[in-house]
């Protein structure tokens, strides 16, 4: 840690945990303490962690529903405006009316799926604030093992309950190893 870095505000306090189970129980304690700006980092999604962190179900599903509905409406407009008004095609003597609607279903279905998939794909990255190629966590070398087999708990300094010494001690208390402060080197 350089002298300049020591003076600035830390970005967060971080501690490593030995297993998914330890991280899970630590998360429950951090949740009960009332922290708000914190996260657990793991090499895979841990079952039940949302509950341990006090997070609800992801609301991405509602956004995807809107995307799917947009796709459905697009298909309805794309099919019926040309087929009913711009250039009505009468094939096999079948006009465009309520009785021939089933023949339009496949395209409606496909566009509903297509738009839902795009919304899901872009939605997950927008909600996760990704892509973001620089992050203070990447500067902390041990954090590179998070995509291998390591588990970390990070409490950010913007949290009102954060204190430079107290939070590090708290992380050690709940079973964290090598609890330390990390700094944003780009500040």
């Amino acid at each position, binding site marked *: 840690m350089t002298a300049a870095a020591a003076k600035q505000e830390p970005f967060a306090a971080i501690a490593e945990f030995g297993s998914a189970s330890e991280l899970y129980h630590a998360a429950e304690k951090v949740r009960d303490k009332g922290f708000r700006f914190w996260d657990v980092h793991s090499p*895979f999604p841990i079952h039940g962690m*949302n509950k341990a962190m006090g997070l609800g179900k992801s609301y991405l599903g509602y956004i995807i529903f809107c995307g799917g509905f947009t796709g459905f409406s697009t298909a309805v407009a794309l099919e019926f405006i*040309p087929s009913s008004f711009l250039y009505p095609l009468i094939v096999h003597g079948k006009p465009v009316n309520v009785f021939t609607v089933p023949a339009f279903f496949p*395209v409606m279905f496909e566009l509903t799926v297509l738009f839902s998939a795009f919304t*899901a794909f872009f939605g*997950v990255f927008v909600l996760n604030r990704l892509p973001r190629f620089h992050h203070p966590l990447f500067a902390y070398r041990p954090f590179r093992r998070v*995509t291998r*087999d390591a588990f970390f708990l990070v409490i950010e300094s913007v949290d009102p309950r954060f204190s430079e010494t107290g939070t590090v001690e708290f992380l050690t208390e709940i079973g964290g190893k090598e609890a330390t402060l990390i700094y944003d080197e780009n500040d």
Partner: protein
Amino acid sequence: MAETQVSAPEMVPFEERMPRPPLVEHTRSMAWLTDLIAGVPERKTPLWWFISIAITGSIAAFGVFCILYLLFTGVGVWGNDIPVGWAFDITNFVFWIGIGHAGTLISAILLLTRQKWRTAVNRSAEAMTLFAVICAAIFPGIHVGRVWMVWFLAPVPNPNWIWPNFRSPLMWDVFAVSTYFTVSVLFWFLGLVPDLGTLRDRAKSKVGKVVYGILALGWRGGNRQWRHYEMAYLILAGISTPLVLSVHSTVSFDFATSVLPGWHTTIFPPYFVAGAIFGGFAMVLTLLMPARSIYKLHDVITWNHIDVMCKIILLTGSIVGYAYSMEFFVAYYGANPFERFAFINRYFGPYWWASWSMFTCNVIMPQLFWVRAFRRNLITVLFVSMCVNAGMWFERFVIFVISLHRDFLPSSWGMYYPTWVDIWTFIGTIGIFVTLFLLFIRFLPMVAISEVRSVLPEADPHYEPVGPHTGAEDVGEAHA
């Protein structure tokens, strides 16, 4: 009532009497798993890879040459003629698009049905889906004859302000296949992001750091990220499930909605979907059995995985066999002389060899998988998979060419003979497919590492290690 009650000794829970086999054998650790899979793109390129890609790349290049020859000369270089206007082109299209279905079945339907074994094979199966759909998409593009008119497929008006007919199965097919490809790419890439993060964090070279770093999009594995990620993954699986069932149904509508004997049947959609899954799993096994041996993935893709895939082949193969028999029966029972003739001609006409190859490869050969020993033997599994690959190609040839070559009036009957361009365009797409797969296993993690980690016993937050440490982690370090 007293007799029906189960006596006490039989009340042992099912899980204790028949414990589930572990998904990853030899109690491997996460570190071992990561080193095994992520180590493949990191090691020096092996010699066999260069030799293989030189061969498949040359075949692919010759396939591209055949396509260019077709485009610059005209469709007359193919054997297609009246009455057989659809031959190798559409046979190959349906063959390749069907291959893709196994990947989506593994990634979507098996996720929804909580088949955890899918984690070991889903990445490579999804990659296979993409490459198969790329091969498939070549054929509708080039079979139109005047390839510069291919934009007529798009839902836009032509210069005379005539719009396409949205009620045509061919139009549905355009939407179905393009949606299928797009959704498969998105699903595959979303699954790759955490593993690209692994490659980024392990990368030693500058190029690796930059390329994997950009592709990983800054993934940090935080639970606030996983929360949305898992929801997106689940919903993509949910929408891919009807999608994959719809794609081959829509493909089958191209034929089923026509009036041609041999095509005009209501059994086509389920029969095509079962056939697609059947052929796709055979291709998954054809690609994975060698990859598993070369990269020593035996603890990740275990014989139990291969066993269940063989069972799926047995099931879907039997469905396909039922469909073949039922088509034949309905032709007899339906009392339509043209339909009856079409099916007698199918098995006893000039193309009898194609039909009997199809029946042998698709219906008889998979029956070997009733025997457990054959499901767990490298030679028999590969042999049956190869039979099914060939059989499914013959199936499409049988349905399209044999039905077309003798329809209603004997005066309009004819024969179809493929030219060298037909044959080499098909072989060329096999080259493209294998080349893309070789590139995939060289540069990307071929097993979904983060998903396999999540099915290890220690991934359960309520898992308590029993007894002393197994030492598997030390083995893993030594292996690395």
